[in-house]
């Protein structure tokens, strides 16, 4: 009897072990398919190293970071102040615009579509657009942050409000007004989460504000880019440390009670305001951004206009390919790094180091990382890929490690490998994959922007369009980018695993 059973198990052993529809197997197949797709398509990407001595350059950069030249900095505090002021006022404007939209979000298709559109275009592209109208001014910087953030706030606030428990609302006596219902039984329940998300978005705003330096606004990024480009690595190192200190000390200087003070001080730093020329603005909106043949009603002319478009196919292909590679890279980086910062592994020292590494990678904006890798490796997709994988992987690893920290293993005394493979990974993997899918949309948005560094994605041609004052081309390509983002967002939403996702709005 038991012999027959053993025989049966012997026969079944090793047969089609990958089949079956348990969550683990399904997600494993899912991830492997994603990795296989990336491996299959990777040869299409230009991953060559174009510089002669990348290691030597890396050494010089590391030396710059290790021995920063604090004395060489010119007016770092005004750059720092402007960075904070732009982030603060940009986020605030985003909240003011986004909050009312969040209340309409569930009811109006128009609002949802509009928010999806403004969200799909990166802050830097908005900055490039407003640069043409408002020049290098605080207004450009604020609008570049406020408009996409309004779309993001509308969506995330609406989701948070919707997920608030319904029981208190249902318990209200009939006839309670809409406003009373909102302020008594909806807002208080969602408040903590709304505040946490706003705080996270402000941190994103700080990074974006730094990046605005790349298009010429005098924030921290402007000085960073100049120093890096001119090879003054000790100075660049000092600026980078300044940035990390700014992010790390956020809990102290960004305290709730200090915000009004910072807002007042920031308003003073933002000036002077540009005088907006209404006529020019109108010309830009009504003529410059439209293809001339379209305005003339010349349809054959429109076709030739389209055919003169820079290489649209390869640009879209590169954007999507880099998005895929970046996503898969982030998955691998996250899988490799999360145990470093998790309380179940290593000792105090390794955890502290792992934590530091993750915070460092997570706080450095992708564009910054890509820019540094670009100086090291030359203009191919490789630096962009590394930057996307490291930044996003570290961000996911950080959240996953925090979630793993609260798990208590059921079997004490397992070796580390057993703890990882049997106790923790099965529990957190669905969440990890869900975070990755949330993040895929952000990765694609970043991919487009990396073109501004000279990598042949859509952003490269968008910046070129603005540079050569071909606003119609630039705006058309922006629309293409936005459409691509919206399509990928819809796609990832379909494939996102729904099993126990780590529900953290702070990845979007």
């Amino acid at each position, binding site marked *: 009897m038991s012999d027959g059973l053993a025989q049966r198990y012997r026969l079944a052993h090793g047969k089609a072990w990958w089949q079956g529809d348990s969550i683990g197997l399904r997600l494993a197949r899912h991830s492997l398919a994603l990795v296989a797709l990336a491996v299959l398509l990777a040869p299409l990407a230009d991953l060559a190293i174009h510089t002669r001595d990348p290691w030597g350059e890396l050494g010089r950069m590391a030396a710059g970071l290790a021995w920063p030249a604090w004395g060489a900095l010119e007016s770092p505090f005004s750059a720092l102040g402007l960075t904070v002021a732009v982030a603060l006022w940009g986020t605030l404007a985003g909240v003011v615009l986004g909050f009312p939209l969040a209340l309409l979000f569930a009811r109006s298709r128009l609002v949802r579509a509009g928010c999806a559109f403004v969200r799909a275009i990166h802050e830097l592209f908005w900055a490039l657009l407003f640069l043409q109208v408002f020049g290098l001014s605080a207004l450009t910087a604020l609008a570049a942050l406020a408009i996409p953030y309004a779309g993001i706030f509308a969506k995330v606030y609406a989701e948070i409000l919707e997920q608030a428990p319904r029981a208190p609302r249902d318990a209200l006596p009939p006839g309670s007004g809409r406003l009373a219902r909102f302020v008594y039984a909806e807002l208080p*329940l969602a408040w903590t989460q709304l505040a946490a998300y706003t705080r996270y978005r402000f941190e994103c705003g700080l990074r974006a504000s730094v990046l605005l330096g790349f298009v010429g606004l005098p924030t921290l990024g402007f000085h960073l880019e100049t120093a890096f480009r001119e090879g003054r690595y000790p100075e660049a190192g000092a600026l980078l440390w300044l940035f990390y200190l700014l992010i790390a000390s956020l809990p102290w200087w960004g305290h709730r009670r200090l915000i009004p003070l910072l807002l007042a001080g920031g308003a003073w730093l933002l000036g002077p305001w540009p005088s907006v020329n209404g006529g020019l603005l109108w010309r830009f909106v009504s003529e410059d951004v439209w293809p001339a043949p379209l305005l003339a009603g010349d349809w054959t002319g429109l076709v030739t206009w389209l055919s003169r478009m820079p290489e649209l196919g390869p640009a879209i292909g590169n954007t999507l390919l880099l998005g895929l590679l970046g996503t898969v890279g982030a998955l691998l980086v996250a899988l490799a790094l999360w145990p470093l910062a998790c309380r179940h592994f290593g000792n105090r020292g390794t955890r502290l180091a792992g934590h530091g590494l993750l915070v460092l990678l997570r706080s450095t904006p992708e564009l910054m990382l890509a820019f540094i890798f670009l100086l090291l490796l030359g203009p191919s997709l490789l630096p962009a890929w590394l930057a996307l994988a490291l930044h996003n992987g570290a961000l996911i690893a950080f959240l996953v490690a925090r979630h793993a920290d609260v798990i208590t293993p059921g079997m004490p005394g397992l070796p580390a490998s057993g703890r990882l493979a049997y106790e923790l990974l099965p529990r957190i993997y669905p969440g990890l994959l869900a975070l990755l899918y949330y993040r895929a949309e952000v990765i694609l948005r970043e991919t487009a922007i990396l073109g501004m560094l000279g990598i042949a994605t859509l952003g490269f041609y968008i910046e070129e369009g603005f540079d050569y004052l071909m606003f119609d081309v630039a705006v058309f390509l922006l629309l293409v980018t936005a459409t691509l983002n919206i399509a990928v967002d819809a796609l990832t939403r379909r494939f996102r695993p729904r099993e126990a996702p780590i529900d953290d709005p702070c990845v979007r």
Partner: protein
Amino acid sequence: MEGEQRRPLARFDAEDIGHDGRVVLQGLTLALHEGERVALLGQSGAGKSTLLGELRRRLGDRAAWCPQHHGLVPQLAVYHNVYMARLPEHSALANLWNLVRPLRRPWCEVGELCAELGLDGLLRRPVGRLSGGQRQRVAIARALYQSRELFLGDEPVAGVDPHQALRLLALIDSCHTTSVVALHQRELALSHFDRVWGLRDGRLAIDAPTSELTLADLDTLYPDAASPGVGSRPRDADMVLPGPEALPCGRGRP
């Protein structure tokens, strides 16, 4: 006898009741008369909440409502949670201002009510920082503050010790002429109510005055409790596992 002559407050004639297109209670025939105190019994998932929800819908403004799991806002103070019972009676502006600074009259009224319920001195404390029993009393205070003639409660005395349960039910009785209360304590149902509605398998199995009922009659409402595990096939093992509330050692029983 007397009840039959009075005008019913709500009446069901062989009606199907459910939500989202799913029928929970089939062919329900039932009448609620003024002055009755009804205990609503049945296993978890038998349809007690569905029936109470339907009663609440039909009775509208006449019924005070104490929902299951309280439905309180943990971030708001006890005072504000209780005040919510009278949101419709104040203007939107007054309701907003009340969040910033409590209005004088409601503050005094809620204070008196809370003192009666043993919540003295807790008016400003957020509900999230109260114990389970205190929250239960806040939920009851909110229902009482609605000051209606009828009381509908979905397990308002679940998880409260028996003496306190009696005290709370007495308080509810003193403020309302009619009440329908879902509960799990069968002894309490017999000792404290005029009538029992018992739900089982989506039907009204018992509708009788408590004077005609015994504990054994009520036990028939809890089939799983009688012989746990017996006759359960392994395939639907998790279906027949009795919920904690259906177990014979009901919470809060003497």
